[in-house]
């Protein structure tokens, strides 16, 4: 009886031990059969890292976000699976999410590289184009009256262009592009306006050259002196015997660019005149003065036409009392439309001129392509 029960117990013991071993083997085998998705998630991680390195967060944010969301979901799913018994784990969803994340990350990287390349090209050409415009405007601005609106509007542009270059240099392509888009139109408009001002102004160039020749010839034929005031060059040229005798620096009206339209516009008139009165002493407040016959017949005709066309108000006055006088040398265009010389130069000019001396006031004797030595 005793022997029988002992045998029975041994059998039970061996069966129990065998069961434990079998169970442990099953668990261990299930671990080895279900390979964790480590490799695929590593690949995803590397793809995301590469996309981040190419600044996909900035240049392809939506695709990168999609990749990161899928990655986070895959990791969360893996965590949930790892909490389960190895037998019940299922890595299928994790693998699918990881693949989707890798795909999105690769696309994000490609898109970021492409967008950066395109942006770089756009910014570089944008900067070149803006620089051309700003440089052109700067050259024109320097030759325009101090208070011309072109100058006022060009300063914010040139500051912004500097900012764009700074942003581009430190790799902030989006800021640079945004700023280019902001100022591109106003820069183009200002450049166009500058070109129009110059084109319009120099449309009379051939007439100015003809007037200069006329003065030269007059001095040769009549034996006297004739004067030419070159507004752009700020020079008063004295011709005698068909040759340039003297040349003086002059200062002009504040709004010297363009012809005089009416009284108070502070513009220096353009045209052919003659000295009508020589003033000195108490007769002038500007040391010495040579009054010219502004307005002449041509000025009156033009003024009336402009009035008729409504370009100037009906109550406007043509103005007058345009002189070549002393008191200059201020280093700025400051008169109400007269031509000012330094007193010492005025002495010389006053001595050379007499009543009847012809005076031509012209915009420029230098062609615009030489004055504005820049490519349009």
């Amino acid at each position, binding site marked *: 009886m005793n022997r029988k029960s002992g045998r029975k117990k041994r059998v039970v013991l061996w069966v129990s031990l065998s069961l434990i071993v079998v169970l442990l083997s099953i668990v261990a085998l299930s671990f080895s059969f279900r390979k964790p998705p480590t490799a695929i*998630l590593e690949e995803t991680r590397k793809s995301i890292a590469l996309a981040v390195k190419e600044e996909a967060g900035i240049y392809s944010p939506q695709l990168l976000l999609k990749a990161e969301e899928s990655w986070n979901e895959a990791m969360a799913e893996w965590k949930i699976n790892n909490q389960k018994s190895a037998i019940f784990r299922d890595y299928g969803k994790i693998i699918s999410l990881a693949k989707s994340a890798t795909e999105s990350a690769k696309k994000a990287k490609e898109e970021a590289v492409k967008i950066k390349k395109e942006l770089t090209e756009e910014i570089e050409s944008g900067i070149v184009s803006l620089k051309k415009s700003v440089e052109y405007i700067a050259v024109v601005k320097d030759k325009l009256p101090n208070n011309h609106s072109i100058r006022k509007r060009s300063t914010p542009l040139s*500051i912004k262009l500097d900012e764009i270059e700074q942003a581009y240099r430190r790799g902030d392509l989006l800021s640079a592009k945004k700023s280019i888009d902001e100022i591109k139109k106003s820069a183009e408009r200002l450049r166009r306006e500058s070109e129009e001002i110059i084109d319009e102004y120099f449309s009379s160039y051939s007439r100015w050259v003809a007037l200069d020749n006329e003065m030269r010839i007059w001095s040769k034929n009549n034996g006297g002196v004739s004067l030419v005031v070159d507004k752009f060059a700020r020079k008063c040229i004295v011709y005698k015997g068909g040759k340039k005798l003297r040349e003086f620096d002059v200062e002009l009206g504040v709004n010297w660019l363009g012809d005089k339209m009416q009284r108070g516009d502070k513009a220096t008139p353009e045209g052919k005149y003659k000295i009508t009165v020589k003033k000195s002493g108490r007769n002038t407040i500007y040391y010495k003065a040579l009054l010219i016959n502004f307005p002449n017949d041509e000025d009156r005709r033009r003024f009336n036409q402009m009035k008729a066309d409504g370009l100037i108000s009906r109550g406007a006055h043509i103005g007058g009392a345009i002189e070549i006088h002393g008191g200059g040398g201020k280093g700025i265009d400051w008169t109400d439309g007269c031509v000012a010389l330094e007193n010492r130069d005025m002495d010389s000019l006053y001595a050379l001129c007499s009543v009847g001396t012809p005076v031509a006031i012209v915009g420029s004797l230098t062609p615009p392509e030489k004055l504005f030595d820049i490519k349009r």
Partner: protein
Amino acid sequence: MLAYLFFTRFGTHIANKYVRTSTIKFISKMKKLFFALLLVVAVSSCAKLPQAEIDAANAAIESAKGVEANRYLAEEFNALADSLNAVNVAIEDQKSKFFLSRDYKAITEKLTMIASDVEGLKARTEERKAQVRTEVQDTLNVLISLIEEDKALLAKAPKGKEGKAALEAIQNDITVLEASVTEINTLVTNGDYLTAQDKTTASKAKAEAIKEELTAAISKTRRR
């Protein structure tokens, strides 16, 4: 029954009384083997998940974002964030293994290293920010001085009948620069030092150009 004989003192007593000596010896051997196994399990269960280190590393990365390390030292920040991602993969990889073969030692070391590296990165970010802030402040001070110089030169600049009106355009430029100073101060207050730096450098260049222009105009008058 077997478990009763196996685990309890009373079981042992019963076994001594009723079971044969050879069986008792076998049970005793099995007991030793079981406890040895239990010891192995106990030792291996020491490979606990380094939760504290994980939390610390995650918090460190978040705090680095807080000091804008991702903006000022983006490459270094991205490398550390990627290292943390790699560690997270390694953690789950270990968790996927049979509990007896898990090992978090290397992971714990890596997490500690990440947390420590992030602290270094934060310090360097603060240094970089301070450097940019100082540069912006220095350039801004130069800009403010230049604006004052420009104003003083403008007062000395040649004027005609129109007085100051003749130099209205230059005054307008100075006003634009003063508006820039206000914008720069706002950017600095908002902590956007990089944009502030761009604006300060550009405005300073303009202020210098105006100074040059005015100085030339004044010297031209003096020469005459």
